[in-house]
């Protein structure tokens, strides 16, 4: 084989490999997209079906299901409640966690990592069903039964360790020279946090904020046991009431409310993502 033919052969095989790679890539992306999209079809179609079933079919187009949701005395309020509770949880966790994660990231406190991970593990107990009674009793003793504040506090306590943990990881990768620089110009800790750390860690904060919303938004057990006035209950609880006596799902209500219940959190995600991004800046040095 001459050098020339070998080079040609080489080039041909390279082109072939590249083509196969390209094809593989397209197939992979398509398969994954379909995988993610197919289950969601029901959510888009069933709410508009006059007689939705547990299958995807061409609907008998109607908005009746939504009329019924509108007629439900609690549906609209529950979305508002969800927004308030999630908002409270996000505000509380993000503010407290930002402060804590920053300090933990920048100052060595003995046993810091063990503490963080220990709390992270404990949070798995408390967010489960086993801690229901202690949680209820605690909120009862504080006189916060039937208040959204109680719900916000319990949820925040449960997700704070995770948020601190993730945020600390983000903060650790923010170059420290930013803060040192600001400090040299006389900025105090709060000023540094506000002017430098928070803006730089913003994609990370956005991430945990959305994560907190998702957690709070879908929680059922905590608001259910702590709230008694249905006008205070969030959508996550109301979602479970569209059943008949024997626990049969009323799909007309459920399909429509699923959409109503899902949309805000999706919108929140897209807004946050668009405004703040979910990543780091492709920094000068990170």
């Amino acid at each position, binding site marked *: 084989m001459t050098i020339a033919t070998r080079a040609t052969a080489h080039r041909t095989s390279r082109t072939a490999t590249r083509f196969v790679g390209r094809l593989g890539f397209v197939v992979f992306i398509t398969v994954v997209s379909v995988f993610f999209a197919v289950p969601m079809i029901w959510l888009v179609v069933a709410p508009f079906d006059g007689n939705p079933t547990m299958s995807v079919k061409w609907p008998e187009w109607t908005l009746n299901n939504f009329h019924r949701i509108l007629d*439900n005395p609690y549906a609209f309020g529950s979305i508002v409640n969800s927004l308030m509770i999630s908002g409270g949880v996000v505000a509380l966790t993000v503010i407290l966690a930002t402060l804590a994660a920053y300090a933990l990231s920048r100052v060595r406190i003995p*046993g810091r990592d063990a503490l963080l991970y220990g709390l992270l593990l404990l949070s798995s107990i408390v967010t489960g069903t086993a801690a229901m009674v202690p949680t209820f009793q605690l909120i009862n003793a504080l006189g916060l039964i039937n208040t959204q504040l109680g719900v916000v506090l319990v949820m925040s306590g449960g997700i704070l360790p995770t948020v601190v943990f993730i945020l600390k990881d983000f903060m650790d990768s923010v170059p420290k020279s930013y803060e040192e620089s600001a400090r040299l110009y006389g900025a105090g800790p709060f000023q540094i946090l506000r002017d430098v750390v928070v803006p730089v860690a913003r994609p990370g904060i956005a991430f945990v904020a959305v994560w907190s919303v998702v957690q709070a938004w879908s929680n059922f057990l905590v608001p259910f046991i702590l709230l008694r006035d249905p006008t205070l209950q969030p959508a996550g609880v109301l979602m479970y009431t569209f059943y008949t006596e024997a626990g*049969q799902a009323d799909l007309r209500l459920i399909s429509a409310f699923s959409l109503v219940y899902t949309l805000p959190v999706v919108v929140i995600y897209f807004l946050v993502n668009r405004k703040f991004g979910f990543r780091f800046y492709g920094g000068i040095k990170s």
Partner: protein
Amino acid sequence: MVSIGRRKLITLAGLALVPGALDACSSTSKTASNTSSGGTKNVTLTITANAIEGGKNAAEAKWVADWVIPQFQKANPGVTVKFEPQGVNDENYKTKIALDLKSGKGADIIAIDGIWTGEFAQAGYIKPLKDVAGAAVDAWDGWKQIPNAVQGAVSFQGKVYGVPQGTDGRVFFYNKNLFSKAGLPTAWQPTSWDDVLNAARALKKLKGVTPIQLNAGTAMGEATTMQGILPMLVGTGEYVWADNKWAGNTKGLRDVMNLYKTIYVDEKLGDPVLQQEANGRDSSFQEFAAGQIGILAEGDYFWRSVINPAKGVGTAPMADRDTVVGYTKIPAMKPGSGVKGQSFVSMSGGAGRVLNPNTKNADMAWKLMELICSPEGFAARAAGTLSISPRDDVNKTLLAKDPMLTYVSTEVLPITSYRPGLADYTQVSTALQQASLDVVTGTSVADALKTYTGTLGGIVGAGNITNN
């Protein structure tokens, strides 16, 4: 990234293990029933039930809001009545009211499933009506209208803890169209299990038809016990709990399990896969409504709610329900082999309302209870969805409109049985469901019951089991 000293973590876990003496915080309630008996100034009463407007049991919620509250407030100026709707699944509802009662809170009148009476009473969450509201309870004339058996649904150890709100009964529903296609009589009354099996065998010849649906398995939960195992068990002459002992590996239970084996394994008269589906019971309703199931053991609720053709009531409405769907009493295994020598059997549940022992206005709460349980109350309630009330006088007038409910109230209720209202029951029930599942999925009856008795021993103690 995290770098945790292994030792540190273990120390931490060790710390967490130290038994915290934190229990002290359980807030003991101030059970002061400072009964402001006569004075009706600014009294607030609360009712709770597992019902919510626009959702689960909407009719009840609507009735409380539109009838009970205005009526009572009109009759008792100065009193405010509030409704705390719930509308979730029974386990969650039970959990919530248990937490409420435990912490000395909760609504003044609470709707419960009769089966919870025993465990709530044992926990001290509820007290006999008389202990809460005094002599007024005995003086109520409504008791005369409520049969003792029905009162038993909210009683524990001979004491009445609440006022029954309704009851039900289990029957075999069957599809008359399929029956005639299979050459079976459309007026059908089996008198033994064999009769039922023979009918199923005939139905098996029809294509696309599951001959019989006898609930089995854990996925259907209590529906398996209530519509499947227990009605069959009482047909063998045994109770699941008798003489302070639970039925273990008994002859009756073996018969029941063999029946399951015949239906689902040996002769394939039922659909074993459906028993395992998470929403299998809903599917069975859909299939029955679609004419794909021949015989179905269900409660009257199936008739009045699930396949009810009235607009917006049923989730599997059958427009031709009244002509196509037949119903008949569940036969004992053989004529006369049922409990108390009965030839036909049934199981019933019952809902009730109890007074919260922590109520500050026991007298007024009882007054409200009397209104709720008055004939007018039940009549108003029935305007939404008709069901069997606990009161004979009410049933006489209201049920006349519905032959099926009349049938249950006159033919089935006299021969019915109730479940034992004990805290252990839930777990025993789960163990029974598991046994039926084992059989349906191919385990031998002997092995299934061996597992069952093992589990049962763990729940109630080996000494509290009957084997024969």
